[in-house]
């Protein structure tokens, strides 16, 4: 077993607990948080692929010492291959996804600790807990374990919003929790249905039971389980009808918090989406459902973004729209389409974090996020304006940036799968995304500065600028060399078809 696999979850949790205890010891909090955050993206790069069985409980087929003493009616049955412990699966797709998540977490934590004079141990605690939870969602092959971390991620997200101190943050946090406490039990009920039918919570074992006829694939309880898990998926990733509350959540967080929150949503979307495809892809309508939800997310996301005046809300809704692209890739269902969708997920997490941090500089120097009260920022921060413009270009899919490659792949996948209509919709939504971004960019940077607008703090921390440059570099590298990411994702995509 590779000890680095559980370490990806255990290290941020341990660091989070320590940071909570060290709250108010500013220097220690800062050093510890930055060092551990820097290690987060490194661990997946060093870890080797494989499974990790908690407690060392291997399946009987791999554990001759125990299997030898058991009666044949156990060792000759499916129990021989079932997983008796919580299992984490670490493959190439997880490697790149956890690396990107760790990198965004590092940049968000690094930025937050340098933007505030007195770093909060509690705030860093929440960021680490959220990161650990979403990493566990990506790794876990146990659907109940996934539900547990799904809940921890939700509470961490609420905590990040509560700790932000933004006006009306408590109201939004409570709203999100109320909806979450309806959606999460529904997800658990879906897990319970699966447990009731298959007697298992291990995803590989559930699939084994369905594929080998131990459970009838036509069992209506499986259909109900699918519906309930999809409902939890919609909530966790902020898809319609939860897009409004999700974007409200982003808008009530600080920019570095929002950058991390959206990464949580993207990777929760991918993690749960892959599980839904793995278990329920035999249902004839499963792909159609994913496509319909994705189209709704794209259309509602960009149209709602067009109507907003708050910077963070605009990006929040655009992020929901971009989730739709990932869903379309998964819904098209070919290996190429799924690879494109997963690549789009990586790109979206990077670009949206980039946009939140980029527009966050405007918030930092003016203390305002309402675009109607902003203007003339091009004169105040001309170099940053160029960086933010590039972030917007990346989101809209302008070459040679990363989302161009993933969106091009998605369009090609839709043509290959003989659904070119989806490709046309993707192009149209990209155009509207570009328009929405340019509208926000114009009002903030290019129109004359309103006389009442005060610049309260012109010195943007170097940490923020470094973070933005790192994200820009990744956008360009992945744009020029997409195979760096797609090679890692192809293996998973092939296994899902």
């Amino acid at each position, binding site marked *: 077993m590779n000890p680095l696999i559980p370490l990806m979850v255990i290290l941020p949790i341990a660091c989070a607990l320590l940071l909570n205890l060290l709250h108010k010891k500013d220097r220690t909090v800062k050093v510890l948080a930055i060092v551990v955050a820097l290690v987060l993206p490194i661990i997946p790069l060093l870890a080797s692929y494989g499974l990790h069985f908690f407690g060392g409980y291997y399946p009987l087929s791999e554990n001759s010492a125990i299997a030898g003493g058991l*009666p044949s009616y156990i060792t000759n049955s499916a129990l021989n291959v079932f997983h008796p412990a919580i299992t984490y699966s670490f493959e190439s797709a997880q490697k790149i996804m956890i690396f990107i998540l760790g990198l965004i977490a590092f940049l968000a934590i690094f930025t937050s600790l340098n933007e505030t004079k007195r770093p909060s141990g509690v705030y860093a605690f929440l960021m680490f807990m959220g990161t650990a939870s979403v990493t566990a969602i990506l790794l876990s092959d146990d659907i*109940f374990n996934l539900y*547990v971390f799904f*809940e*921890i991620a*939700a*509470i961490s997200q*609420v*905590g990040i919003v*509560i700790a932000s101190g933004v006006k009306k943050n*408590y*109201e939004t*946090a*409570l*709203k999100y*929790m*109320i909806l*979450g*406490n*309806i959606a*999460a*039990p529904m997800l*658990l*009920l879906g897990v*319970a249905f699966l*447990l*009731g039918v298959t*007697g298992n*919570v291990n995803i590989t074992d559930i699939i084994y039971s369905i594929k080998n006829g131990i459970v009838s694939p036509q069992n209506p309880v499986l259909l109900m389980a699918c519906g309930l898990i999809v409902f939890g998926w919609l909530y966790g990733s902020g898809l319609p009808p939860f897009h409004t509350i999700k974007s409200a959540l982003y808008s009530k967080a600080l920019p570095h918090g929002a950058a991390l929150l959206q990464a949580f949503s993207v990777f929760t979307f991918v993690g749960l989406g892959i599980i839904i495809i793995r278990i329920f892809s035999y249902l004839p309508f499963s792909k159609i459902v994913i496509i319909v939800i994705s189209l709704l997310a794209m259309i509602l996301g960009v149209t709602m973004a067009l109507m907003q005046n708050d910077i963070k809300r605009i990006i929040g809704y655009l992020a929901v729209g971009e989730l739709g692209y990932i869903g379309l890739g998964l819904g098209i269902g070919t290996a190429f389409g799924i690879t494109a969708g997963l690549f789009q997920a990586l790109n979206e997490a990077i670009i949206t974090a980039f946009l939140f941090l980029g527009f966050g500089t405007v918030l930092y120097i003016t203390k305002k996020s309402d675009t109607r009260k902003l203007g003339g920022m091009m004169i105040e921060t001309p170099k940053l304006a160029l960086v933010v413009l590039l972030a917007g270009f990346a989101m809209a899919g302008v070459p040679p940036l990363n989302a161009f490659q993933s969106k091009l792949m998605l369009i090609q996948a839709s043509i290959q799968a003989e659904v070119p209509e989806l490709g046309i919709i993707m192009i149209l939504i990209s155009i509207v995304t570009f328009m929405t971004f340019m509208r926000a960019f114009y009002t903030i940077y290019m129109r004359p500065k309103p006389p009442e607008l005060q610049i309260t703090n012109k010195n943007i921390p170097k940490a923020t600028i470094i973070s933005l440059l790192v994200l820009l570099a990744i956008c360009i590298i992945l744009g020029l060399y997409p195979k760096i990411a797609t090679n890692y994702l192809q293996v998973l995509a092939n296994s899902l078809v």
Partner: protein
Amino acid sequence: MVVDTQLASFFTAGALIVIGIFAALFLDNLIKKVIGLAFIGDGVNLFIITIGYKPGGIVYIFLPDMTVSWFAQNASYPLPFALVLTSIVIGASTLAVMLGLIIILHKKHGTISASKILGE
């Protein structure tokens, strides 16, 4: 009339979930909403416990005077109970966070009416 214990438990779980969803969506008092949410969680927990129920079954503890085959035939399925324990802890945590938020919002707004605090 003999009522099937497992079936009765499933119905109770269903009733708890339905009542909980109604309270969470339609009641204006935030505390009542939270009670409704607790009902949903409890209903789901009861549902999971009921899955593991076995008529006349024994607790999943292997004692020295038992044989393996007798134990395998009579012990109830332990996994649901283990899961519910975790689920209860999660439920308690989320409930505590929500109640904490309501206390802060009550101090801020002077009311616990959802329509006044949360808007719609």
